[in-house]
């Protein structure tokens, strides 16, 4: 995602929604199986954690602070952590800019909250707060030591957040040309049993050189463990030199962690791309789930029956070639397509849009449907090429467009959170970011700056829920 950082004066908007959605798995519904019938209104049956950034712009200047709020089911949200209000004299105009741009994610580049995640049982929330990465613009956060670090708190708001350890020394965003903020990179995740957190931080490789590594923290004891010892690397081509080289740590199961890295251990990633890798929590068995994306010469059918595996993952895969839609206002030119990969590494490409902003969402608990978002118009129902949510059968059939957002006759930004210049003028086309699916109600949650339903969202990015 690219764009200016945004917040809103006088109104609230949520950011860091992806980690909130992880809490929706925690309602006891479990994965797999057929899911519940798709009737009735969209429901959130688990825990939703989100960060509100409140910005007031006055003649005196800018006044901003953040709150971590947790909502369980249909109960009223509770505030469990707040950052001190920061003020910047004479900078009050920024609030209007951030409101106009509808880009709440951009607060990670200036504010304290970097990561939020909810445990699978919905009973607890972990978050990361730091004042080390306030760069765009720089805010005098000056957090006291007790307000910086990785914290754990009960989702019902009882008790005081418990500090598990210091914050990561790797930022969760990067800034591309034109001052566009890309982030957060969602690097904090609970294990399925809720007992361990995985995250990205800097640590020594096998030769002692510092590089981005996967770490874990035991929630009960606070014991911190470095899982990977990958060689140092640089960001992939087209990314700024200070971009993180590792991101997206998430537990596949209690024993294995998935992440993306540009590292090249054992020559598995000679191009230095953000390649999906998995590793066991004890640091063994590093695997690369999807080694190829184009047919090898002499490829043949193996006449041994196999049944495509369970636990499919929907992932983004970079493809060679020139995309048919250019990144708005500059940016990396890459083709991204959605693949579904099972646990035996059998892979199937689901999309063939040849665009820069096609992105995988989730696999439905029924194991048969995959949700993704794109600005493509494969069905002739998205002529404005605005960002939309789609569903497709896991075998590549039954493609459906689930949303119908439209802001202009032709979107300038596709699925990128952008703004047209510093004025934040709109409309330019609205973006969305699919985040999660409640496994019990099968409700889809996504984060969007779009303004559907009779102007119900004039104030910027919000979390939306929808039945698929």
């Amino acid at each position, binding site marked *: 995602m690219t764009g200016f950082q945004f917040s809103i004066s006088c109104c609230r908007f949520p950011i860091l929604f992806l980690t909130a959605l992880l809490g929706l798995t925690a309602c006891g519904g479990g994965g797999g199986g057929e899911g519940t019938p798709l009737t009735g209104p969209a429901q959130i049956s688990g825990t939703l954690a989100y960060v509100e950034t409140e910005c007031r712009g006055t003649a005196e200047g800018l006044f901003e602070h953040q709150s971590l709020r947790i909502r369980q089911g249909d109960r009223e949200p509770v505030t469990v952590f707040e950052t001190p209000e920061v003020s910047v004299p004479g900078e009050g105009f920024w609030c209007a800019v951030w409101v106009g741009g509808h880009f709440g994610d951009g607060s990670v580049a200036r504010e304290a909250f970097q990561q939020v995640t909810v445990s699978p049982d919905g009973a607890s929330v972990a978050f990361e707060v730091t004042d080390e990465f306030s760069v765009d613009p720089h805010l005098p956060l000056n957090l006291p030591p007790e307000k910086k670090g990785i914290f754990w708190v009960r989702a019902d708001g009882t008790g005081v957040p418990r500090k598990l350890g210091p914050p990561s020394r790797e930022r969760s965003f990067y800034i591309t040309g034109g001052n566009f903020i890309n982030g957060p990179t969602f690097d904090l995740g609970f294990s399925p049993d809720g007992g361990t957190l995985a995250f990205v931080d800097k640590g020594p490789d096998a030769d002692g050189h510092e590089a981005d590594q996967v770490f874990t923290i035991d929630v009960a004891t606070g014991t911190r463990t470095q899982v990977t010892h990958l060689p140092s690397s640089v960001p992939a081509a087209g990314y700024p030199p200070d971009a993180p080289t590792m991101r997206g740590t998430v537990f596949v199961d209690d024993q294995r962690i998935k992440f993306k890295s540009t590292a090249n251990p054992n020559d598995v990633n000679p191009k230095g791309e953000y390649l999906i890798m998995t590793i066991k929590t004890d640091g063994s068995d590093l695997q690369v789930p999807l080694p190829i994306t184009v047919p090898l010469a002499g490829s043949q059918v193996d006449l041994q*029956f196999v049944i495509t595996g369970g636990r499919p993952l929907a992932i983004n895969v970079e493809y060679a070639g020139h995309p048919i839609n250019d990144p708005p206002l500059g940016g990396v030119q890459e083709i991204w397509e959605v693949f579904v990969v099972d646990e035996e590494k*059998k892979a199937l490409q689901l999309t063939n849009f040849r665009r820069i902003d096609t992105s995988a969402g989730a696999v439905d608990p029924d194991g048969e449907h995959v949700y993704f978002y794109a600005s493509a118009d494969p069905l002739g129902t998205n002529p404005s090429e605005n960002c939309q949510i789609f569903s497709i059968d896991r075998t*590549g059939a039954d493609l459906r467009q689930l949303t119908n957002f439209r802001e202009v006759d032709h979107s300038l930004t596709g699925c990128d959170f952008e703004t047209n210049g510093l004025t934040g003028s709109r409309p330019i086309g609205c973006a969305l970011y699919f985040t999660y699916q409640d496994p019990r109600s099968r409700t889809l949650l996504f984060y969007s700056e779009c303004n559907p339903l009779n102007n119900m969202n004039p104030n910027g990015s919000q979390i939306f829920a929808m039945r698929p």
Partner: protein
Amino acid sequence: MLMSVFTQRVRARLAAVAAGVAAVALTASVASAGKLADVFTSGELAGLKMGPIGPALANTVASTYPVASASSGVTYVYNPKLEAFERQAGVLGPIIGERAETIGQGQINIGVSYSAVDFSTINGDSLGNLVNQPSVGGRVVSFPVPGGVTLKDGRFTTFLPVEVQANIDVQADIGTPSITYGITPDLDVNLSLPLIQTYLNVKVNETVPDPRLPQFMLRDCNPNGPADDPNTCKPNEIRPTMINHQAADRATGFGDLLLRLKYTILRDKPLDLAAGLGVSFPSGDPDNFQGTGNYQVQPALVVSKIIAERFEPLLNLGVNINADNVDRSSFHWAVGGTAAVYGPLTAAAVFLGRNEFNAQTDSVSEPFFFQINRNDYYDFSFGMRCLFAETGVISANVIVPLNRDGLRADYIPTLEAEYAFTGPWNR
């Protein structure tokens, strides 16, 4: 790339009739290669993941074998005036099902039956034409393509789904010697030990990619076009393929030993009422579809009544208790009767039922062909019995299914011969 594998199948059908009740050495099942259930898990079919079907078939097949009545067709009562046992006049007993009357103290009945079972359907679907579901929970039966292939629509994949048509031929020839002895005037004991030859033949035709999933279509290309034509197939280009596989095996061995007791509680008050107890010992090999693999206890109530020495309605109610897994027990019942037709001829017609408490085996984890469910079996048994040499009976019977649950044959014919006589110690 086109492969065709056809195996010439030669099948000999043996008449399995055991001779008498002389001691028969118990021999291990004789299978040409491994166990019948292994047909699904080894060789060319190994990767089809049909392995779970084997135990499912074994359990269902062994539970489906017809078991001839332990009740003697001819019964005796002691005449104190004559100080001898007299054969009771009246209808001959049923072929399938029980009547309450006992054979008579010291009397012996020996018999042998032969049944031919050729299973044809499972849950109503023909075993001769089982086609896999295109997708189950988003998963497909597939062939891997490790190097990957580009589909017609330009997408990439490392597997291709397969349409599989399976022809599963399961047959059993069952010869069952049996002996019934009257311990007391009211108590009979019966011992039956079937000798079974089972046969399994699986033929599989595969089409890849699965034509039911057009999203996996491969590029149309001309295999014989000029090399510089873009529509000409590239060397070794992956193209649609049809493949045949086959595997077969047979085995001969003993089935489950069945010991049955019957005690007459009431006579002519106003009905005849007996209590029965059967115990089945797992002497048959379940992997060759010749036994259940479980101890089974079979308590039952038997009600019957001879009317005018010509008719005998009957009702059997019983439970087949799986001693190793009670949840997999079943309820059995029979209602019908026999009627003297003409002279030595008796007709027997009985409705049979078996209602399972639960599925009799573990479910198939990936039910691309069928699933193992709890079943209710309803059958109709009809036969004719003929008395000869005063105490001998020959019978012919057929069982036909009345519903489509579970594993079924179109019909099961049974031939039986028995002879009753007084034990030498009673003369």
